[in-house]
């Protein structure tokens, strides 16, 4: 049998997807469990005319990304939790200055330098923002390598379309594992002239446009409060459109379910198996899998079968962060409970199933 799939390690597939999606500039600093991404980029980007720079730190990397993006480059960066934390100031600046960027967080256990095993405790960091001021970053959380590849491939375009950073939140598990994956075709890459023409906000040079009135300015400083308020309100009109257009999720088995899980990324895969275990015990369980974490898929919660469902369980690799959004989405319609491990520990599917049973028992 002939297959058009290839067997790739998550990190290498992520990097290849960004290249095929058109990313030609990468700035980064090695950190487990995503160091294969910069390694791959350092080897492969020069072959397609791109540039790889190992920055002196993540702080350097995000600011290089800011500059290269402002100049119209198609930029990709990656790091892991504490490295992404160092980049938060830059994320706020890029959002204010409307600079596109595709970013990948292969998250691990925290807080602090934490550990190197998979984690999802960056949920607040990534959905609420660790930088200052009013801003939003669309975040997508893939649960297998193919989905990660597809999101990264699309991500370069989304970043340009929304003129904002786009974050892909993976975790150590899907970054380190291997799965068959179908790689998309290489996107056409813009020439410098095409960039100057199509990205008509970017600082691509001054001479040929002539006159100070035609200059392009990329900035995040606005000293007059009236102007700053006006700018932030403009940004939030954009974010309101993004909330509608970028909301993505999957639901499974909601009709007639006694209990509904909410889980993303690796945890969604464990939960799927927990649902099979529960089914074998005569308990019908459903799943809401947010793909976009911001915008959070509130409307998925309207699909819950409120005649049969007694509880909603947020399954997370954290002490309970997404559960806040689950409660907002439920708006008091059902109680929300947590099934979790943290610090790099990953629950088994029987553990998750047992938690659901205990929750249902407790409600009787």
């Amino acid at each position, binding site marked *: 049998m002939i297959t058009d799939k290839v067997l790739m390690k998550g990190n290498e597939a992520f990097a290849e997807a960004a290249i095929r999606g058109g990313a030609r500039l990468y700035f980064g600093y090695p950190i487990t469990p995503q160091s294969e991404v910069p390694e791959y980029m350092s080897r492969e980007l020069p072959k397609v005319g791109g540039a790889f720079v190992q920055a002196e730190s993540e702080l350097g990397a995000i600011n290089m990304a800011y500059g290269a993006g402002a100049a119209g480059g198609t930029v990709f960066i990656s790091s892991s939790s504490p490295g992404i934390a160092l980049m938060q100031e830059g994320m706020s600046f890029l959002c204010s200055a409307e600079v596109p960027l595709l970013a990948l967080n292969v998250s691990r256990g925290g807080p602090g330098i934490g550990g190197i095993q998979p984690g999802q405790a960056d949920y607040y960091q990534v959905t609420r923002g660790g930088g200052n001021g009013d801003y939003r970053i669309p975040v997508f959380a893939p649960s297998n390598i193919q989905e990660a590849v597809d999101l990264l491939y699309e991500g370069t375009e989304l970043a340009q379309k929304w003129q904002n950073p786009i974050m892909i939140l993976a975790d150590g598990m899907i970054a380190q594992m291997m*799965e068959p994956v179908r790689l998309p075709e290489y996107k056409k890459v813009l020439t410098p002239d095409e960039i100057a023409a199509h990205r008509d906000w970017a600082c691509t040079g001054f001479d040929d446009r002539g006159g100070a009135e035609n200059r392009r300015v990329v900035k995040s400083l606005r000293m007059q409060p009236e102007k700053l308020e006006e700018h932030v309100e403009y940004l939030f009109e954009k974010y309101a459109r993004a909330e509608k257009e970028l909301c993505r999720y999957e639901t499974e088995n909601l009709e007639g379910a006694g209990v509904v899980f909410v889980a993303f990324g690796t945890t969604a895969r464990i939960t799927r198996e927990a649902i099979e275990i529960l089914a074998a015990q005569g308990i019908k369980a459903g799943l809401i899998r947010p793909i976009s974490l911001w915008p959070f898929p509130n409307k998925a919660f309207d699909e819950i079968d409120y005649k049969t469902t007694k509880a909603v369980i947020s399954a997370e690799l954290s002490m309970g962060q997404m559960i806040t959004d689950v409660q907002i989405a439920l708006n008091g319609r059902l109680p929300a409970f947590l099934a979790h491990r943290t610090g790099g520990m990953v629950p088994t599917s029987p553990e998750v199933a047992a938690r659901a049973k205990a929750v249902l028992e407790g409600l009787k």
Partner: protein
Amino acid sequence: MSTYKMFFAGSGGQGVLMMGQIVTYAAMLEGKEATFLPSYGPEMRGGTANCTVVVSDKPVSCPIIYEADIAVAMNLPSMDKFEPMLKKGGKLFYNKSLIERDQNRDDIDAYAIDIAGRAAALGNDKVANMVMLGEVVRNTGVVSIESVFHVFEKVFTGRKAALIPLNKQAFLGE
């Protein structure tokens, strides 16, 4: 519909991850769904290494497993850890060259393989893991022998292509 959940475990350098990758690759070539999940961490040469492989006719929901149909133990600590995680009726393949004890359970099928002796007889101790992989594949049918040979052709290229006959020999137990 069938799903195989497998552990491959041993010490660093014994070719444990390679075995898991070949099975995963072969499964993909057969059009099956498969996942390969290595343990990762601050390991060193000679430290422990293990991986989890799931091969299925349907999309693999979870790459993490808590019980296995097949366990491959290349050293004693691996056998101590993974023998209890086999399902009832599961298959345990262990490295008789290094492991002095027999299996503890009587509700599993155990295969004790003298991989070092057989590799030495072929004149190359590096193919010990292929001796083991051959036993696993031929006794379980998780993937076909042809698919594994197809993988050899994809993996052993250039100068390494000369190693294909030796690896096939080790694999077939000839």
